[in-house]
């Protein structure tokens, strides 16, 4: 009796569900088709913007055009984007689960392996940060690699000491605050907002990117973890 009742309910809802799926599919396909046709008929390339980037690249302080656009010509977008990242971290922390699940400790060998990988991760990240001036690279790429290290630390259930945990709030916001400090400081002496003085452009971009790398790494790790990390409980355990 129970079984047939369920079958009746399924029979009644199934045609409706199928109809919904069919209609949605048709509408989506129609919209996609129209959009595809529009893309097909796009006019050929006009090099308005490209010329501007090429001619202004030498005074941007970097040699890679994408880094120049991200950190100089359209640096304001990047500023807001770092704000979005920090906002997400605050949001995720505010949604953190109220009960803390005790973390299992990973086998000691895995912890040792991961802790030996970490120096290489840091070196690669530092390289990516520096090479952004000349080739694809920069703050976001370096921060992402560092965050991968952070994710490894988290998944191997490494415990952080109190100093690390206490430095999390400031390291979260150091990127945004540094960027804002530089941006507002450029207005001293009559310059435009975010207009780096020419001889210092390269250095200022590096400073902003360095601070941003730290913040991005910590933010992405927190986004992965979903809550504040656990601290170390005294007494310390031997080894590892």
């Amino acid at each position: 009796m129970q079984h047939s009742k369920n079958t009746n309910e399924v029979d009644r809802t199934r045609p409706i569900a199928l109809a919904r799926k069919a209609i949605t599919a048709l509408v989506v396909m129609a919209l996609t088709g129209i959009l595809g046709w529009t893309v097909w008929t796009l006019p050929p390339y006009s090099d308005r913007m490209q010329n501007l980037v090429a001619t202004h690249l030498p005074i941007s302080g970097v040699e890679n055009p994408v880094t120049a656009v991200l950190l100089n010509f359209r640096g304001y977008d990047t500023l807001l984007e770092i704000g979005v990242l920090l906002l997400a971290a605050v949001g995720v922390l505010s949604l953190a689960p109220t009960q803390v699940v005790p973390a299992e400790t990973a086998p000691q060998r895995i912890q040792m392996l991961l802790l030996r990988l970490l120096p290489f991760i840091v070196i690669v990240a530092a390289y990516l940060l520096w090479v952004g001036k000349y080739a694809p690279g920069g703050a976001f790429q370096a921060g992402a690699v560092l965050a991968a290290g952070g994710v490894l630390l988290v998944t191997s259930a490494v415990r952080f000491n109190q100093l690390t945990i206490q430095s999390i709030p400031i390291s979260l916001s150091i990127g945004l605050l540094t960027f804002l400090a530089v941006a507002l400081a450029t207005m001293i002496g009559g310059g435009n907002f975010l207009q780096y003085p020419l001889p210092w452009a390269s250095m200022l971009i590096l400073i902003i990117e360095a601070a941003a790398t730290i913040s991005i790494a910590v933010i992405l790790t927190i986004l992965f973890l979903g809550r504040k990390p656990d601290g170390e409980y005294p007494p310390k355990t031997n080894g590892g």
Partner: protein
Amino acid sequence: MTISLLYALVGVVLLGMGLYRLVIDPHLVKKILALNISGAGVFLFLVAVADRTPGFEPDPVPHAMVLTGIVVAVSATAVALGLVGRIREIKGTAEFSENEPE
């Protein structure tokens, strides 16, 4: 058809596919994945737009847009997943039922 046009059209198709799943599937994590696929479609379209330059160097502006867009998408996904976690804590399930009030 040039390569960049092909990429652009594939991007549009991805956008549509994600939109379909977003509307149809009741499971929240699948909705979030669908949104990410749609986002990937838009980014693919932008990368294709960057390839239209006549020379060897691509147009850096769409590349910068995609980089920014990826960061924004990651942030949004993180918040969305955090919400899913909270919903699971409260309601015990990660699916929207058909008859939500109001």
